């Protein structure tokens, strides 16, 4: 069983989740996440040898359909809701190191 969540863990998790936290937020989350994980200790300690995991509550089957073109969202309408676009595509800040 893992030890209590540390401040370094919280910093790491925030980076994975693309969140920037203030020092005050970090302190708070160390305590609060720790309390929730402590509460989950009963689950972590259960013997579940041989028990299969459930990802979905009811039996599921793959859903297939004919490969036929159907209507989709109007491009202009979609791009109107975007923070930035060039009229045909979403526009984002630079991705790699080079100047745009």
């Amino acid at each position, binding site marked *: 069983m893992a030890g209590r969540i540390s401040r370094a863990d919280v910093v790491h998790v925030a980076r994975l989740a693309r*969140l920037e936290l203030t020092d005050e937020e970090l302190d708070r989350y160390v305590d609060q996440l720790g309390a*929730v994980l402590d509460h989950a200790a*009963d689950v972590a300690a*259960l013997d*579940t040898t041989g028990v299969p995991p459930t990802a979905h*509550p009811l039996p*599921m089957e793959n859903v297939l359909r004919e490969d036929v073109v159907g209507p989709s969202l109007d491009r202009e309408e979609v791009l109107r809701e975007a923070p930035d676009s060039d009229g045909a595509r979403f526009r984002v*800040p630079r991705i790699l190191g080079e100047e745009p």
Partner: protein
Amino acid sequence: MLAVADAVRQGRRSARQLTEEHLAAVAAAEPEVHAFNTVMTDAALAQADDIDRRAAAGEDVGPLAGVPVALKDNICTRGVPTTCSSRILEGWRPQYDATVVVRLRSAGAVVLGKTNLDEFAMGSSTENSAFGPTRNPRDPSRVPGGSSGGSAAAVAAGFAPLALGSDTGGSIRQPAALTGVVGVKPTYGVVSRYGLVAFASSLDQIGPLASSVADAAALLEVVAGHDPADSTSLAEPAPEVTSVLDEGVDGMRVGVVTELMAGVAPDITDRVRQAADALAGAGARVDEASVPAAVHGLSAYYLIAPAEASSNLARYDGVRYGLRVDAPDITAMYTATRSAGFGSEVKRRIMLGTYALSAGYYDAYYGQAQRVRTLIIRSFDAAYAGFDALIAPTTPTTAFALGSKTADPLAMYLSDVCTVPSSLAGHPAMNVPFGPGDDGLPAGVQVLAPARGEAVMFRVAAALEALAPDTPEAGIAPRSHTEVVR
């Protein structure tokens, strides 16, 4: 059966007048309750006029003709802001209607507005809204519960006779209990999730809130049924529930879930025992039932739901919709946008879920929670071998004071302890108001049934409703008593 809708269909009542009456109720008490993020006044009146015009022309305008419905603001409405009560989606106007909205409109319902919620449906009090809390119409110093607190308050205050909410771990049932209305979480897959903004996809389910069991049943039949646009939608027609309400519980085997009575306030467990006695008096064979693994429900839920949320909410990256906070490169833009756009509870859940899924912890937390989910399903299956339906408290207490749990997330999470087990199992469950607690505020009894057990669940609920003690209807905005059915 649908008296109000029938009157509209036959031109004896106008949809416009019905809509205006409810908009007037909103205007009078909404400043104090804050049930809505958006009141769709003009669109609702236009829709009502259209229904009146078509009814006058002899068209069949549908089973919910002219009946106002409030929608939780995480259900997409074409051209109408759908915020999830989050800054990150403020101002976003979806390009499509959710399947439930299409079905409501074609049934003749009038969409009155979009209701407040805990941000992205994460919370149990509607205090985690970026646009301010909703207050309980029964007592404005108390929370209405959450996350569908706006929908529950809208029904309790008489703003709308019907509302839709979404329930991931209790978000329909718990606010229904705290505001004294009926709230239903259907079997997973009964109602299409197409157009419901995702929180935890293996748990999320849309369902009705109403002031009576019959009204909730009528609304469920309209919105339920297979939808090819949702691959997790059951390939079955809507469950028939309106036709079974008078069948009674004679000979039915009903269990009181021992594990869900533990840690619950005595005035609530008294109500559940009173409900059990009432069902026995109506001919049900009532006994104690044990669902041992249910005690692990809360812990498993608060690992699984945040894990799914951390994945689902990765889409809010400032690229395609909603908020963007500018930054020189894309990674900095993602981080700046998400840090500014999400509130503290959403960040907490994303962090918790990311941690539960991260390398080194995945098996101990997320994997283990999924195996415990199997144990919970097996535990319910064993109980349902001996019982047709189960009853339990819906919530551990009546409505709590605003601000009383906001500093302690775990205390807030414990409000969901009675509702999460059936969510994890994918089973249907619903709240039926059953008299007041010791403080005079509504107390609720939860009816649980196995997967696809809606008909049995509604029979028990209808019997309980008929047997419930009278609740004095306290509150700043007494119900309008616009019952749709009867």
